[in-house]
């Protein structure tokens, strides 16, 4: 499953930061609501919703819960699950607060460390996640969860041989379906796409839990895209979204397929109400641009502001999206290439190869993406979206 955007810290140059700020100001000047404080006219105006698990009344019990490992860990797990399900990064922060006491240098809880690694991985801090996972495995070498997470992180980093060995460790300790998904996903990236696709299709989805089924469907969908079978891909994405409607990553992949097929109206329908998720807002903006929809200016301002805030925080979880934003919305290939190159330092999935190559071509310096082309060649990554030169 090709799921991962990006990671490491990449300091923006001051000039770029100022340009970004100027973009925000320019964009917000065009009559959009972003960045203009106001006083609501009515007391009954609804400003926002409070999701379950994020109410002030629960704060005291949270503070007590984190003192007891038997309560803190399940709660952390719950928050991580909520972050996954809704795409809401704040829940990762709540999970971190639960784990804080149990992950210090003297920690003896492999479970706490694996949860911590999951949080780090979600923040694209992959190298630290691997360190923490190795600490967990030193405490508990048989931890299937730890091995599966290791495999996932290594795959995102493009270290396929090591990832395959981690999948083998998983297969000795977990159910065969999971290990098979782990292994075939990697085979599909290393020159055996068609047969890996067939193997995964053979795994019965019958009786699979939703999360596992979503993994299978999105893996199949993305493999079909790379094989050039968009009709099959659409089938898998629709299937997957039917059972896991909150899987925003799969939704984004489906939106990309629709955009490639020039079906922007369907993109807007697919992503309606999902504007608060940056990767989805990016696809909305691209569709709006194709349709000359006046809503584009608002989306543009929102995305600029979000990327600027990420850059200031220093996390830049969405550098891959930022590169596409700069290229496809802002028509700034030079800046897009900078973001894509920074992204490449952090994660190496097929999408990252594509983003890097597209930005370099658009900027008129195709050789700038040589590392990505070399990577794709060496691993024999198959993808109809890549031009033959790759």
């Amino acid at each position: 499953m090709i799921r991962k955007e990006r990671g490491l810290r990449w300091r923006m140059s001051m000039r770029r930061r100022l340009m970004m700020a100027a973009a925000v100001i320019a964009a917000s000047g065009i009559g959009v609501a972003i960045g203009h404080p106001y006083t609501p006219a009515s007391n009954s105006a609804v400003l926002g919703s409070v999701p379950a698990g994020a109410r002030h009344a629960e704060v005291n019990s949270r503070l007590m819960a984190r003192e007891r490992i038997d309560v803190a860990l399940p709660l952390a797990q719950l928050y991580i699950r909520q972050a996954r399900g809704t795409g809401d990064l704040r829940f990762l922060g709540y999970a971190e607060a639960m784990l804080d006491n149990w992950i210090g240098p003297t920690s003896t809880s492999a479970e706490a460390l694996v949860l911590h690694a999951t949080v780090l991985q979600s923040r694209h801090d992959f190298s630290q996640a691997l360190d923490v996972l190795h600490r967990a495995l030193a405490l508990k070498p048989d931890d299937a969860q730890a091995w599966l997470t290791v495999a996932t992180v290594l795959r995102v980093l493009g270290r396929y041989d090591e990832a395959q060995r981690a999948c083998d460790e998983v297969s000795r300790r977990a159910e065969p379906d999971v290990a098979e998904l782990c292994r075939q996903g990697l085979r599909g990236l290393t020159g055996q796409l068609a047969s890996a696709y067939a193997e995964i299709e053979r795994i019965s989805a019958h009786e699979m839990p939703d999360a596992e089924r979503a993994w299978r469907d999105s893996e199949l969908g993305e493999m079909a895209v790379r094989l050039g079978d968009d009709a099959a891909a659409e089938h898998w994405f629709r299937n997957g979204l039917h059972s896991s409607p909150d899987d925003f990553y799969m939704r984004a992949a489906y939106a990309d397929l629709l955009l490639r097929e020039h079906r922007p109206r369907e993109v807007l329908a697919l992503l309606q109400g999902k504007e608060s998720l940056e990767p989805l807002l990016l696809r909305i903006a691209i569709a709006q641009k194709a349709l000359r929809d006046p809503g584009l200016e608002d989306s543009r301002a929102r995305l600029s502001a979000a990327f600027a805030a990420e850059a200031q925080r220093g996390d830049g979880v969405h550098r891959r999206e930022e590169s596409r934003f700069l290229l496809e919305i802002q028509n700034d290939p030079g800046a897009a290439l900078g973001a894509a190159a920074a992204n490449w330092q952090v994660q190496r999935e097929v999408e990252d190869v594509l983003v890097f190559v597209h930005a370099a071509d658009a900027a008129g310096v195709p050789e700038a993406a040589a590392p990505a082309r070399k990577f794709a060649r060496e691993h024999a990554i198959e993808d109809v979206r890549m031009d033959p030169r790759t």
Partner: protein
Amino acid sequence: MSRPLLAILVLLACSCASAHISSNGFLTLKATASQVSGSLELAIRDAELAVGLDSNGDGYVTWGEAQAHQAQLTAYVRDRLTLSASGSLCEVSFGALQVNARVDGNYLRLPFTATCSAALRDLSVDYRLLQDIDPSHRGLMTLGAWGETQTGVLTPGRVGLTFSLGRPRPLRAFAEYLSIGEWHIWSGVDHLLFLLSLLLPAVLRRRGGQWEAAPIARPALVNILKVVTAFTLAHSITLSLAAFNVVHLPSRLTESIIAASIIVAALNNIFPRVTEGRWRIAFAFGLLHGFGFASVLAEMGLPSGARLVSLVAFNLGVEIGQLAVVLAVMPLAYSLRATAFYRHTVMRWGSSAIAALAFVWLVQRATA
């Protein structure tokens, strides 16, 4: 391995990057010589966690619920956010709550001004909001001072940051205080009303107990020039004296006399006593208006190293704002001067309205 356990296993392995942006508090500051103005913006979600906004527990936060918790919110922020200059705490006062729409939803915006006793050479920020609940919360700070913008990130691992503000270049201080002066005259309606009351009859002349139109432009122009110049000269003198601490008057006294001066000027249009030498009124009361301007400057302070330049710029800003109003109003007054509407309605009822408003101010200011 059992099914439910497996579900968790897969869920945790899925490397999908989550998307909602992480929790940020936006701290925007602008520093002048001894004052910092700014705002803190907290997401509705974060404000709910901090103090609890959703009183009726329906899962939605309304503007009414947010406003009802303004006191708790300011108390929470006061406990966890401090500004200090050269080691001594600045005194923060909060304004009325607002809303700002950002990419991930609405934020509550808490404007404030901080008055620092020391001259602002450096500014230290200590930010500890939400860190016990969400260690990934960040304070994203932007500090503007003298045309330079600095940014910083406050984290649980680094709750404090100190910024050096440097000294403004004279040109920068000039531009800054020029705009403060302009802004002050626009928002300081009392100075404008005083001036207008004196200028309304400038396009007329008094004959046989009646107002009539001035026959040619020249005397009207001379009248206007005299009044404006006298007012400008007078308030410049006292503004300078007060800014350099030569003379000091209690602000309640000056504010009250300013209100009284408007009443005098307006009543003089209805029951004329001084008809030819109104510039004398402009000069006499202008001296007191200067102390009024000075109190604005005193709150902000003058930047060390550029005190004179800033004072001149502030004064010039006041003149520009004042001149803009005169240029906008007087040609209109001149063209209407022969009408009964101008000579009776505007002169009598307009002046009465001004006098009445000023009377309310006088009572408020004298008893405040």
